[in-house]
């Protein structure tokens, strides 16, 4: 007898094979893993795994140690944003990225919610450096035009003024009153880099 199986996680493959070995007339024709269980209990569709995304991820310095992630969850347990906002779950982001599920990673705003406090970075037993992975993912999303408008605006402000907060005449006067030295109003090299 020939059967085709669709299962929900890679971990079941060995179990299926073990069961099949007990029945000599059972010939497994094909095993397709269609989804994967996430640590928090949800299931993610694996059909969206994007090999091009995985390839570009593997070339990025910040994601060099992503493959070492074994989903212990120390990052999520250490995360001050997670304490406030359930939507944010660094462990989930690491796994989705590792599986190449680009659309899943980019579709919501959660990669933008990392506050870069580096607590998970200090505690990660596998030295995955989740904040660095987050920067890589954010940069990739930004290239596809998916960065929050406020963050894009910051770059444009720097291109225009050379400073995040412009040193206008009023500020310059106030600085003089406080006996603070005059500063370059619009650093040209910053404008040029931001413009590029």
């Amino acid at each position, binding site marked *: 007898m020939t059967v085709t199986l669709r299962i929900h996680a890679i971990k079941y493959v060995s179990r299926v094979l073990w069961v099949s070995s007990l029945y000599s007339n059972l010939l497994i024709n094909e095993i397709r893993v269609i989804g994967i269980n996430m640590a928090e209990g949800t299931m993610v569709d694996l059909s969206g795994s994007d090999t091009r995304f995985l390839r570009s991820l593997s070339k990025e*310095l*910040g994601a060099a140690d992503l493959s070492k992630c074994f989903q212990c969850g120390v990052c999520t347990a250490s995360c*001050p*944003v997670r*304490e*406030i*906002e359930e939507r944010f779950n660094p462990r989930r982001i690491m796994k989705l990225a590792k599986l190449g599920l680009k659309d899943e990673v980019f579709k919501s*705003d959660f990669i*933008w*919610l990392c*506050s*870069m*406090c*580096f*607590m998970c*970075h*200090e505690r990660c037993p596998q030295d995955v*450096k989740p*904040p660095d992975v987050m*920067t*890589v993912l*954010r*940069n990739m999303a*930004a290239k596809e035009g998916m*960065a*929050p408008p*406020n*963050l*894009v605006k*910051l*770059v444009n402000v*720097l291109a225009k003024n*050379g*400073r*995040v*907060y*412009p*040193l206008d005449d009023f*500020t310059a006067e*106030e*600085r003089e009153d*406080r*006996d*603070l*030295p005059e*500063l*370059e109003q619009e*650093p040209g*090299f*910053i404008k*040029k*880099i*931001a*413009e*590029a």
Partner: protein
Amino acid sequence: MKYQLFLGCTIPARQSNYEQSARRVSESLGIELSDPEFGCCGFPVEPVDEVKALAMAAMNLKKASENDVPVVTLCSACGEMLLKAEKLLGDEEMAKKVNAVLSKTLETTYNREKPEVLHFARMLHQVYGLDKIREKVKRPLSLKVATHPGCHYVRPKDLFAGFDDPEYPRSLDELVEATGAESVDYVGKTDCCGGSLLAVDEKVSKAMTRKKLDRLKGKVDALVLICPFCGIMYDKYQRLLEEETQTKYGIPVLYYPQLLGLALGLDPDELGFDVNSVPVKELLEKVIK
């Protein structure tokens, strides 16, 4: 002692109390600060374009190394960004990408210039020294203070050459104790202020700020910190949170140089207290009897 002062964007325009107090304190301690033409450290650009961010940091490092004088930063994120750039630009691929931007825009390249970069508080603790600070104290403070060391002051730890502890930093507490004040221990001392999320999700950002304020309410005379974004969150946003939640926190937020300045006997008018959002009148009355 000579240092090049790296101010960044936020301090000169929005937190001049930090700058003013740091300059007056430096004068009083005999630390000479110079002001080369630095620009944005690159940190705000990192989420959108890390290569551009590193190019900005690299240019600042190049400028800094024109003088054989170490750099001090008042902003923890600026300090972390500059040190991170020194490290990441050691990677050949990354240096190539950054140099492509620099040669295109400014006809220059980064050639591994690695000036010494220290946070102002780290400089006071590690180089100037606690003993010397204690000797200079003219007005020992009998205050109960909570410290907020912030994130980028000690994390990621591989950038700070063994200075302080990323989980249990003590240097800011010791600096506070050198003024005579008591630094109290409390839950969540190393928590992030939430400032970096302000442009992404203000609600989350404010909730992070509020958490610490809730814990400290009525327990301390002041919250002492060393980063302008932490300052904006805990000081300016404390007032906004008070309005929104109808809760009176009333926790004065001081930059460490403001606290130190008081202990050194400086006139409060020289320490920029008029910029502080949460009223400091009672605190100052307590200090200057």
